[in-house]
């Protein structure tokens, strides 16, 4: 019987139970007839089972009689229901927080679509700051006319290492390649799950990098951010 049922892939649980009941009943009826003819119980059972034929073939042929349509429909409905629950779930405060954390780790640009057009070079520079991670994911550079000064913009986010914990303020600042602090301006958005910043400051055109610095916990932590310049200027 288990071999028959193992080949039933298109049936619902109720249909599977009904098929089992019907086949069990058939075997039981045959065994009763054989017992009345004088067979002992063991032999009657063996004969009745053998008379049913190849269980795999019976299962396969039975399965073919059940259309895929309803099963596919039910599976599609189930998937849609799960997606709706997830969509509702991530709007709830308790679940939205980890969602924002994961979004910052995996797809930060999707959280700041308004900035995407200003981003030029994708980078992946991450620095631990206490229990948080500073993730620099994009940069942009712009020459300022004929002067040697240029503007650099760094796009970064912060998220806690633990998806369910809150993110803190970063206290990050930037230095040029000569070790001088760059006094720039930043703007961004912040939620409990993640914080996004767009920082801009002035450097000399052609500087190969700037350095992200954090001295929040008494030690100096740095991460080098390479700069890419448009040629021909």
């Amino acid at each position, binding site marked *: 019987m288990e071999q028959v049922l193992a080949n039933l892939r298109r049936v619902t649980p109720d249909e599977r139970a*009904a*098929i089992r009941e019907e086949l069990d*009943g*058939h075997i039981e009826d045959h065994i009763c007839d054989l017992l009345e003819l004088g067979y002992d119980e063991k032999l009657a059972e063996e004969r009745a089972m053998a008379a*049913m034929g190849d269980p795999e073939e*019976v299962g396969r*042929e039975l399965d073919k*009689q*059940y259309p895929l349509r309803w099963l596919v429909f039910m599976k599609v409905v189930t998937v849609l229901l799960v997606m709706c629950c997830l969509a509702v779930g991530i709007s709830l405060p308790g679940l939205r927080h980890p969602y924002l954390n994961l979004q910052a780790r995996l797809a930060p640009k999707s959280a700041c679509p308004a900035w995407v057009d200003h981003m030029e070079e994708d980078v992946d520079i991450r620095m631990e700051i206490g229990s948080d991670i500073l993730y620099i994911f994009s940069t942009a550079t712009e020459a300022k006319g004929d002067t040697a000064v240029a503007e650099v913009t760094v796009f970064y986010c912060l998220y806690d290492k633990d998806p369910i914990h809150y993110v803190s303020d970063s206290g990050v600042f930037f230095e040029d390649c000569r070790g001088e602090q760059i006094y720039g301006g930043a703007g961004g958005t912040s939620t409990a799950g993640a914080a996004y910043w767009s920082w801009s400051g002035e450097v000399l055109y052609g500087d190969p990098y700037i350095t992200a610095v954090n001295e929040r916990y008494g030690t100096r932590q740095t991460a080098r951010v390479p700069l890419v310049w448009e040629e021909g200027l």
Partner: protein
Amino acid sequence: MKKQSIDHTKLLVLSLLAGEDMYGYQMIVELGRRSNHTFEMKEGTLYPVLHGLEKDGYVEAYQQEAPTGRVRKYYHLTRKGGAALKTEEKAWETYSGAVNAVLRSSAGLNLA
């Protein structure tokens, strides 16, 4: 030839149900009895045929309690099934007639 055997089983099942409603094991026993045990199929293979006929609307099933107290699934021939039986009978007459004609034309055979 395998397709022909499946169609023949369908014809036999519809014929049995034309007389009375039956459950699966009863059909196997009756088929053996009426055919003088010429038709003794692997019993499990009856059920794909029955379930297929039910899905196609040629038979409908209902449950009835057996004397043992267990519930049996009975099958009943529908109007659509009755019409299909007539079609299958005609198809069988054509097929068996053609086979007989070929056999008759073989030299040395004397078919009644």
